């Protein structure tokens, strides 16, 4: 059942306060968009062996870091000026925490880009790239949906993302097993397979961060902290 609380934030008496919170949301979504494209390009550079694109991603991480600091500053100023309460307080605090997740996602993208550069230099036949493409697409859509759930304060979508994270974990395990067999087949594959393994690991972590963002969206919408709780608890809170 759609809850009115979830669709709109509503207006404050103070228009300036509205503007500040809207600015915070917009900046956060901008940073989210930037991070999304970092991940997308990092994966692209790897599967296409595009060293130039990988280099661009590596440099782009500086901008992500700057966005993190700007957003934190903005959030601190809102607290200092407005002493937000209830859903406003939950928004500001969640943004501060989710920004850290986005920044980590940015770091993972940078890691993938670095591996792309190394793997390009090695220039052997790609093994495990199917898995990278597959898991990469999956975690990218989770990240996108998490940002979307934030924009619409949609706790049901957030819950779906949390469930998808379990699938990503399984896909990661399966891919790791496959890589292990490649390594056992021919020890000359080991270096290369290890690098691919690192990339998969980075993608799996991106899924975890998307999941963290989803948990914060549920906190913002429902006022209950469901981190470290069983899935049934999250379902109960969202179903309220």
């Amino acid at each position, binding site marked *: 059942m759609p809850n009115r609380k979830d669709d709109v934030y509503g*207006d404050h008496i103070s228009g300036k306060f509205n503007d500040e919170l809207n600015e915070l949301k917009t900046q956060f979504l901008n940073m989210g968009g930037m991070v999304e494209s970092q991940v997308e390009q990092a994966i692209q550079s790897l599967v296409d062996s595009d060293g130039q694109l990988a280099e661009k991603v590596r440099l782009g991480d500086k901008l992500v870091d700057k966005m993190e600091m700007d957003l934190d500053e903005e959030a601190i100023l809102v607290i200092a000026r407005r002493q937000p*309460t*209830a*859903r*406003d307080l939950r928004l500001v605090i969640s943004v501060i925490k989710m920004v850290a997740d986005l920044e980590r996602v940015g770091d993972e993208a940078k890691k993938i880009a670095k591996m792309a550069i190394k793997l390009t230099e090695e220039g052997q036949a790609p093994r495990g790239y199917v898995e990278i493409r597959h898991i990469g697409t999956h975690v990218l859509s989770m990240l996108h949906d998490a940002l979307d759930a934030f924009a619409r304060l949609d706790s049901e979508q957030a819950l779906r993302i949390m469930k998808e994270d379990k699938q990503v974990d399984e896909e990661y395990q399966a891919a790791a097993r496959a890589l292990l067999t490649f390594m056992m087949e021919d020890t000359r594959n080991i270096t290369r397979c290890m690098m691919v393994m690192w990339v998969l690991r980075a993608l799996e972590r991106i899924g975890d961060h998307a999941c963290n963002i989803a948990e914060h969206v549920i906190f913002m919408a429902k006022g*209950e902290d469901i981190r470290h709780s069983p899935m049934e608890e999250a379902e109960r809170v969202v179903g309220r």
Partner: protein
Amino acid sequence: MNTMNSTVTSNNETTEAPAVPVQDERPAETIIQEGVTVGSPYADDPKFKLRDVEVFYGESRAIKKISLDIARNEVIAFIGPSGCGKSTFLRCLNRMNDSIDICSVKGELMLDDQNIYDPKRDVVELRARVGMVFQKPNPFPKSIYDNVAYGPRIHGLANRKSDLDDIVEDSLRKAGLWNEVKDRLDATATGMSGGQQQRLCIARAIAVSPEVILMDEPCSALDPIATAKVEELIAEMSESYTIVIVTHSMQQAARVSNRTAYFHLGHLVEVNETDKVFTSPDHELTESYITGRFG
């Protein structure tokens, strides 16, 4: 809490027009239903037990069937927009409304299981037990000493001058004022600063050893430093007194109180732990008010 919410949902047969215009898709928690308060309005072994309280000014009903327990030694804050009835309700607790001719009070109002509105009740004794501090400091145009000594004198609490001196010093100490005024107890109270005058009024209330202190916007005429001193005082006093404070400053309610009660158009909409009210209130209207979305 959830069960209370669901009571609000299921029954749309309100006996009178809801205070807020109802839209079809409006979620249940935005509806006020008479006599229904979400959260936890009741306490075990309360100091005040208040049931179905209604207050009328002539024909108009200012308080609509409010039920609430006030626990011993708790600090409870009453918040809500102007005209929501929080001060009116506060004034029922020591019958301050008696002085208004057209005002009548219905319902069950018990202080330690004794009826506050019992016609045989000695109102002076009641107000000694349930003291009050007002919005504007209102010291008597007398000396600092006499302001504090006034209550104990009329209630016959001190037989000797030295006893009275002790009460005055003790009260001024508790009000955090002793060090500022001990050398000029004979000076006139109206010459003090606003913050000092308000703390003097608190000392005057304490001097008759009350059990409860009602505060009606005690800091609204004070500067931030004087406000901080009064708030500090409230925290200290909560060890020995039950304190009910009406405040327009939500931050103040958040700082000083254990529980917060949200009033709206004569209804008691929500009562919850203060920490809950300011992070994730149960009622939509409470949320709108404390986040500053009320228009």
